């Protein structure tokens, strides 16, 4: 009897299957991108979550300027601008005929509204320092906006290209978390929470009419979904081990690019004996970057010698200042009178930290430092390490673009206190000429490398995978975004 049942079940299954196969085929004017994290909401001006920008940046929301794939500033809603001689007044000419997705027009008053809202006292914008130099914003006429600064701010045009500085309308700004209304080429269609966000093209002649962002938290599920054809691309694959196999698959294209994520072994500079620069230098010399990149990241990642992205024009290769040298590291420790050191190494959840941490601990052991590994959840890490500064060593990736300024911040978690560095940041703020700025940025990189504030390990790679035939996907991630405005199927 059971045999008959089994046979019956098989027949029914087979019949249903053949009936349904092919239901998931993709037409070629749509694109489905797999993302690891789901955004909490869709308002880039009210949260730090990178996942928000990964969906809406450049697609739904646009700023006065935008940052392109290589990290350069490009005009967006402002088609041109002039800067006053003293660098304190920026005059922007806006694009004509721009509409928000709800049909209201975009003009100079919206710019005033958006920027004033972002820098207001009660604003919950996660990047308020972007606007710190702005004194007031004035609409000269409908297509001309003037921004007055309280001090020269060489980064203003770059800052205005961030997701946190996008243009929003007074009519819709308060609902942007749930129904984002921007000026971009794609408008929000629907969000099935926990599953996907769908955007549709505003214009009929866009090569991609529908763009869906699917949220797949598990890296092996991402790979399976790619292979099964459920998704066309994974913007940043979290499983470097799977990339090797995908590379040899003729159906997919793999692009290894760079991100803004400086991954560092952060050191609590205030805590003895780590306040001794010799001990910090010893730690820096004990770290073999390539072994960590190979062991923790399957070889994907660029070694760095300072807190700066290697693809940036101002980057200096300072790895030689902290080259891997066990004997030298031991000597420095002996000189500092710290031959047997016990330190805590607190690790947040990401793979780079957990896997990298084990290798770092083994490497520190070589020079006689006993590092006790303490794994933490993000909440605990923020509480203990970031806010409480109760740690010796930790591993974390700093993913904001051009964020060397954190070394000049008061009470920042690695407790680096250097008047020289702060003076450099002051000079940087007062300089708008880009080559002069790059020189100052170079000096700052040298200073933090010489002081061995942290041990600089590697720049996180962006591991993009997509189906053959898709062009225009970003290879690098100078901002955490998936700009699909230039993407099409061949």
């Amino acid at each position, binding site marked *: 009897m*059971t045999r008959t049942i089994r046979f019956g079940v098989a027949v029914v299954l087979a019949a249903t*299957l053949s009936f*349904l*196969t092919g*239901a*998931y085929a993709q037409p070629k004017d749509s694109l489905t991108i797999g993302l690891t994290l*789901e955004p*909490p*909401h869709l308002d880039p001006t009210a*949260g*730090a*979550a990178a996942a928000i920008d990964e969906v809406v940046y450049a697609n739904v929301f646009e700023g006065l300027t935008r940052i392109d794939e290589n990290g350069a500033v490009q005009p967006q809603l402002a088609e041109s601008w002039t800067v006053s001689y003293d660098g304190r007044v920026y005059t922007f000419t806006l694009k004509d005929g721009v509409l928000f997705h709800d049909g209201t027009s975009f003009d100079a008053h919206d710019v005033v509204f958006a920027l004033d809202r972002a820098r207001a*006292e*009660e*604003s*919950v*914008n*996660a*990047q*308020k*320092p972007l606007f710190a130099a702005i004194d007031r914003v004035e609409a000269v006429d409908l297509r001309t906006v003037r921004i007055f600064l309280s001090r020269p701010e060489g980064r203003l045009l770059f800052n205005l290209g961030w997701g946190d500085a996008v243009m929003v309308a007074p009519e819709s700004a308060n609902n942007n*978390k*749930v129904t984002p209304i921007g000026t971009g080429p794609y408008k929000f269609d629907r969000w*099935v*929470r*926990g*599953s*996907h966000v769908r955007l549709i093209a505003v214009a009929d002649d866009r090569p991609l009419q529908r763009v869906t962002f*699917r*949220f*797949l*938290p*598990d890296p*092996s*599920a991402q790979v*399976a*979904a790619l*292979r*099964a*054809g*459920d998704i066309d691309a994974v913007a940043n694959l979290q499983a470097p081990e799977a990339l090797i196999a995908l590379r040899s698959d003729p159906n997919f294209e793999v692009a290894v690019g760079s991100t803004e994520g400086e991954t560092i072994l952060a050191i609590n500079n205030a805590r003895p004996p780590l306040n001794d620069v010799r001990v910090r230098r010893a730690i820096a010399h004990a770290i073999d970057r390539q072994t960590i990149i190979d062991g923790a990241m399957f070889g994907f990642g660029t070694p760095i010698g300072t807190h700066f992205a290697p693809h940036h024009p101002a980057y200096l290769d300072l790895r030689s200042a902290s080259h891997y040298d066990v004997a030298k590291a031991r000597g420095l420790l002996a000189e500092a009178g710290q031959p047997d050191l016990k330190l805590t190494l607190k690790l947040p959840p990401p793979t780079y930290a957990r896997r990298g941490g084990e290798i770092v601990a083994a490497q520190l052991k070589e020079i006689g430092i006993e590092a006790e590994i303490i794994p933490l*959840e*993000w*909440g*605990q890490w*923020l*509480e*203990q390490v*970031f*806010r409480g500064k109760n740690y010796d060593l930790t591993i*974390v990736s*700093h993913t*904001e673009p051009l*964020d060397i300024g*954190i070394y000049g911040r008061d009470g920042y*978690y690695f407790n680096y206190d250097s008047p020289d560095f702060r003076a450099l940041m002051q000079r940087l703020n007062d300089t708008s000429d880009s080559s002069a700025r790059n020189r100052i940025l170079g000096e700052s990189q040298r200073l933090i490398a010489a002081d061995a504030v942290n041990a600089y390990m590697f720049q996180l790679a962006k591991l993009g995978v997509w189906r053959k035939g898709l062009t225009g996907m970003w290879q690098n991630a100078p901002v955490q975004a998936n700009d699909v405005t230039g993407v099409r199927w061949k």
Partner: protein
Amino acid sequence: MLTFLARRVLLLLATLLVASFAIFVVLEVLPGDAALLMLGIEAQPDTLAALRDQMGLDRPALSRYLAWVGGLAAGETGVSYTYGVPVSQLISERMSVTLPLALMALVLSVVIAIPIGMLAATRRGTVRDYGVMGFSQIGMAVPNFWFAILSILFFAVLLGWFPASGFPGWEAGVRKALWALVLPAISLALPEAAILARVTRTAVLDTLEADYVRMARAKGLGPRRVLWSHVLRNALVPITTIIGLQFAFLLAGSIVVEAVFALPGLGRLTFQAVSKRDLIVLRDVILLLVTLVVIVNFLVDIAYAVIDPRARYAA
């Protein structure tokens, strides 16, 4: 029966009150500032303060607890920190995935386990019995997430019969939606079916040796009649207990399986709420799970009364 029901409802309310207090206390001592987690490490102190104020994190714990329980009693849930929509909306969206999934898995597990368990018991010591026991052993030992990944690789990637992950939503059509739940339901059902088959086998074996079974046989009833109407009915009491317990496991197991299949269900919501410290969502979801478990236990009690008339008087 009425007093039985009334007593049950009172018990449910008391359980929920105790559970709500426990949930609140546990979440209160959880490390991690929700505002900091949301704004990230580059956040400015004044921005943080503004958000903490918006979320009401500065108010004393007791007043927040009373506000929560009072709100629930009035039928109002809070607004999620992270999603910015009412929790009730989130939960009902998610339940439309998790509830069908759990029911599908439960039905699958019962449909697989009871026949093979009975088969094993009636053919005790034969190859079929060992086969069923072997299946049960493997089914219990295999972790469901691993089985889930294997079944994705085989049925979705290799054969292309099912979508590898995700849920198209009910508005995409009932057939499509149910289809997306098949692999997850099998992954969830397999370990439960393995346990249930074993329990069924033992329960049936126990009953087979009872005097009334011998009596039934002696009075000339056919083996099939004895098995289905005398043995099974009596064996159903322990089986029902296990099914009731398993429902709770199915809801909990959905956290893992929903992550592997990227299903927008209650499990994903819970996981996301934990990692984002969305306490407003978390406490309501946990309370809902407690309620479901208590209700299922209640239904199991009623099922006892239906199966076994003696239980009606004992209650």
